């Protein structure tokens, strides 16, 4: 699916963040280590804030003067597996790393595609940075 409009990009981002929140709620239930559990609980909170941020920047940055079509941006390039069944902490963390990497890739590229909307690009970059930090933390659990 082509992400050909600002709205399509933002909706995709919001859906992904909300979906990931559900996934990490599962991770809280499935993980056995207290540390890992607490980490995923923090991530759920972080995702809730990210959804709020994305909804706000969608509302505040849509400007009629520059509602131009967006090209070469496709949802299919950022597939997320949003379910977890294993209760092995290592597997849970490895799955989460893949999810964080995919979303980081999306936000980095999205920031480039939406660079003309400074606040959106900045928020996407910030989110990608957070994804990188999350990856580093998840790796420390392996």
């Amino acid at each position, binding site marked *: *699916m*082509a*992400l*050909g*409009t*600002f*709205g*399509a990009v933002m*909706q995709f981002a919001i859906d992904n963040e909300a979906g990931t929140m559900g996934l990490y709620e599962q991770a809280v239930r499935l993980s056995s280590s207290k540390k890992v559990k607490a980490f995923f609980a923090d991530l759920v909170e972080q995702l809730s804030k990210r959804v709020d941020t994305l*909804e706000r920047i*969608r*509302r*505040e940055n*849509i*400007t*009629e*003067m*520059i*509602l*131009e*079509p967006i090209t070469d941006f496709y949802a299919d390039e950022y597939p997320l597996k949003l379910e977890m069944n294993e209760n092995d902490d290592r597997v849970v963390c490895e799955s989460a790393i893949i999810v964080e990497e995919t979303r980081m890739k999306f936000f980095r590229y999205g920031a480039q595609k939406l660079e003309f909307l400074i606040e959106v690009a900045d928020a996407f970059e910030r989110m990608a940075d957070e994804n990188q930090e999350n990856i580093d933390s998840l790796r420390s659990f392996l």
Partner: protein
Amino acid sequence: MTEVVKNYINGKWVESKSKETSDVINPATGEVIAKTPMSTIEETNQAIEAAKQAFRRWRSTPTMTRARHLNRIRSAFEDHFEELSKILTTEQGKTLDEARGEYRRTIENIECATSIPSLQMGYNAEDIAAGIDEMVIKQPLGVFFCIAPFNFPGMVPTWFWPFAIGTGNTYIVKPSPQVPLSQVRQFEIIHELGLPKGVLNMVHGGAEVANALIESPDTIGVSFVGSTHVGKIVYKKAGEFGKRAQVQGGAKNFITVMPDADLKRTVPAIITSFYGCTGQRCLAGGVLLAVGDIYEPLKEKVVEASEELIVGNGLEEGVQMGPMASKHGMEHTLSLIESGIKEGAELLLDGRGIKVDGYPDGYFIGPTVFDKVKPDMKIATEEIFGPVIPIIHVKDLDEAIEIIDANRYGNASSVFTSSGKVARDYQYRVKAGNIGINIGVAAPIATFPFSGMKDSFLGDLHGQGQDAVDFFTENKVIITRWF
């Protein structure tokens, strides 16, 4: 049974007694989603009376208190942003992004009007003669009203009423009967916020309501947005009855592309300009003037980009162009496409008969591009208000400006160029109220006036910003000497 929308008079929802209604149709599906009553003169007069009564207390309400009311409305609209955008798309057809863009501007107008405590300040001078001072205070006048169009049913009333009530006047909105639902939802939200009764009212209907509002001895002024034909009738009548008037009419906006334009950036801007809101903006591109050598590559890229546009139900995220807002609008555009063919223009891309999966009854027209258009053809002179790009090849900037000047309208015009000199020439010489330099949709933000010239605007003070404050206030001069 389909709901008949209600009037909002004196802080209450009131059913119209009128038996006559018009259908509100979702243009993507062709379904009737509500009905608009053609309210009576009596009902209109009730709204005027309510606004007149409310004015006495409202004008003496402290300016900061009035601003706080506007702030609450602004916040509530933010809270209902997505819901309001979806209602707008459902009744009008524009894409969700376009509806969101419209609501952004709606909120920005209210935000701007929250600065009324500063914007309404007068001015003074000491010692204009020996021991004598002089000052101007900007006073509210009474009951104002607007007659709103179908293309921006969420936003256009906010070019006016936040500034009107912010400055201490009271107000009546008459929405377009084709698209009343956005205003109904806005008023439902406002109703919950405790604005004093009678300050803001809404009466649905047609010409009878508009005439009653203009003819009433108790109204002060009218803000109109719609066709130039109706606008001229309103303006004349407003003069006859001694009303203030600001009348925003039709448009034919010329987009000029110079040989030194950055095509990569220009083409997407052109696509948005001509096809945004399915060409039903008063700021939409109307004719594409390709200057000199840019003509061939520009034409090729415009057709290519037009072919890629995703047409569909605006409620579906990712759709880039929705249906026409009405069957009538669709037929008007189709008839102008026919006239273009008959007058000898070359149809490079034909949007007629486009099929959108799942929406066989929608009012869809696909992107349409004409080449070899002559300046005197109907498609080059008349407002199409649909997704059509007529291309005229001109030799230089002078020829482009000559064509622009010959047109009766002067709402907006844009030039795409890398040259500062060309840009300055353009803004200096072109007779249009809103000029874009490398901007496809020259839409002024709320702190600036929404301008317009020639047959696109009748009056002197525009909507939005300081112009709106001046329209809704009288400059009272006070000359003082103390013995």
